């Protein structure tokens, strides 16, 4: 993708939470880019700073140092009260826990962010209906979130993220609360969105299946992106783990790596099941 538009550009970004003894460096001088039409997956252990990258990229959080550009706008140079407009117009967020408004129907949840709630604008309603139909929810427009399945909720959330036609989609663990079938559906949807709607899609995930849809996978650890990391899949829980730091065992002459001791124990109790060999 040589002459692709760069939608998200993070340059030398550092984020320190707190101060003094309690200071935590969540991001340490990182550079990151995402282009229109691509799906970038950020992986890494818990506490690595993945959510921090997304919230800074999405103009929800200010970095301690560094520069961020979203769709050509330098958000680090903007005043606090200019940021909501960037979030609303240029960024679409997708969350692990869907985060729909419980008292609003699927249609209203999407329409709300288009019209800014100020009008019953027919065009906003039409667009919301179109998006939901595109995501296969034409029959669910009037349903409240509590009447929807997890997969349906996440699709409503995706429709909401697309509502204002932003260039950048940021998703934090979008499949973590879904079973594997719905999770896969959502991932393919995100890939389709990147390619067909020409969006930059950045996904944070632990889920190995997400690699199927990624154009690029980057590894974040201790607040830094690392290119030298060798990863493997924990065959027990499915997480992607860094080989170097993970508990491991051998079975049938093959090495297996795990996210934690618990998964290792489960594996050792029933290696045939997890090694994929006939037991």
């Amino acid at each position, binding site marked *: 993708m040589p002459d692709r538009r760069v939608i998200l550009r993070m340059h030398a970004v550092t984020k320190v939470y707190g101060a003094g003894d309690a200071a935590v460096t969540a991001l340490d001088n990182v550079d990151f880019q995402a282009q229109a039409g691509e799906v970038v997956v950020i992986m890494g252990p818990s506490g690595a700073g993945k*959510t921090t990258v*997304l*919230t800074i990229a*999405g103009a*929800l*959080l200010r970095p301690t140092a560094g520069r961020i550009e979203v769709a050509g706008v330098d958000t680090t140079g903007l005043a606090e*009260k200019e940021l*909501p*407009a*960037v*979030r*609303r*117009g240029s*960024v679409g*967020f997708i*969350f*692990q*826990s869907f*985060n*729909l*408004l*419980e*008292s*609003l129907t699927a249609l*209203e949840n999407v329409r*709300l*962010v288009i019209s*800014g*709630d*100020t*009008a019953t604008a027919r065009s906003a309603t039409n667009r919301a209906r179109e998006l939901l139909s595109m995501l296969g929810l034409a029959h669910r427009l009037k349903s409240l979130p509590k009447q929807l399945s997890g997969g349906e909720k996440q699709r409503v959330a995706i429709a*909401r993220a697309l509502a204002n036609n932003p260039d950048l989609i940021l998703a*934090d*663990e979008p499949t*973590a*609360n879904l079973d594997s079938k719905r999770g896969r559906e959502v991932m393919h949807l995100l890939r389709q969105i990147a390619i067909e709607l020409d969006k930059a899609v950045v996904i944070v995930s632990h889920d190995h299946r997400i690699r199927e849809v990624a154009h690029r996978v980057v590894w974040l650890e201790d607040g830094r992106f690392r290119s030298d990391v060798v990863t493997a899949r924990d065959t027990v829980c499915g997480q992607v783990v860094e080989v170097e730091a993970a508990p491991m065992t051998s079975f049938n002459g093959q090495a297996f790596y795990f996210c934690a001791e618990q998964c290792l124990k489960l594996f050792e109790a029933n290696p045939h099941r997890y090694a994929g060999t006939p037991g």
Partner: protein
Amino acid sequence: MRVLLIARKNLFSERTRLAISVGGIALSVFLITFLLSLFRGWNEKVGGFVENVDADIWIAREGTTDFLAAGSFLPVEGVDERLSRIDEVERWSPLIVRPMTASKDGTKMDVQLVGYDPVSAIGGPVRIEEGKGVPGPGEVIVDEGLSRRYGVDIGDSIGAGGRDWRVVGKSSGGDFVASQTIFITFDQAEEALQMEGLATFLLLQVTRPSRAGLVAGMIGNADPAIVTMTGDEFAASTRDRALGDVIPILTVILILAFIVGLAVAGLTIYTATVEKAREYGILKAVGFTNGYLYRVVFEQSLVTGLLGFLLGAGLTVVLGPFTQQLVPQFVILVRWQDVLGMAGFTLLMTLLAAYVPTRRLAAIDPVAVFKG
């Protein structure tokens, strides 16, 4: 103005809470308008009689302040001669007033016994509703307030001032709420109350009522043993006597009612906001401004206030006449100015109630919604 979708949904998806906050405001509005209307009604009644007496100037013994506690004695002899020297005085008439307890079949009734001159009719019944217009010897005309409260009717006999009087007529306009006027002639009062040659008040009519104040001052200055007041002044000080002590108590109750309404509305709106904190966080995350969130909460508060006001004011208007029939002491006068003022107070209540959660809203961290 269209109410924001979120404000509407937040309000009406929680019916119970809405009912509580609307009920709280309604109760507060009802209490305030009801008490205020009660006060207005009393005020009107208490001053009404004195205002309606066809006298421009009231003269009483020094130290007398009002109609209700009328412990004044003035000699009538020589008044004619002295007043005739003042050109501006057109006419005068003596009036005997004595607060006392009358009785009917053993029931005690607080009354203002009034002895008036039937020729001038000054200080007599304001309006005759039924029966004779002028009492004869041994006869009395009672205010209809008395018949409403104690069932006194034409043909009944009531005891007052050591004698029995036959009720021959009913009048209106002489109800002081706590007591009612009964009327006999001046001569009869003189005799029954042993006030030969004395009057409680001297009532004057002047040629130019607009100059009543000046004339009253002139007469009063000439004689240190008397006090003079214009009709309006006397009505005002009678009102003050009857209700002056009520005003501070009433004020405290009104303030408490306001606080109760504010507390209920404030608490429900605050808890509603806290409960929805995550949703407000989501709205912030997807790009809504703090200003928008304030507006959502403010509109919820405003709609709650409007509903509470309509309910509370409606209750007053509907229940007012009804309670008046049940309890004769309830004299309710709903003035549109009071209702308008109450609308203003409700608005203030809702503004204050909405203000409380705004700091909470500003503090919500949208990043928190990334946590599962």
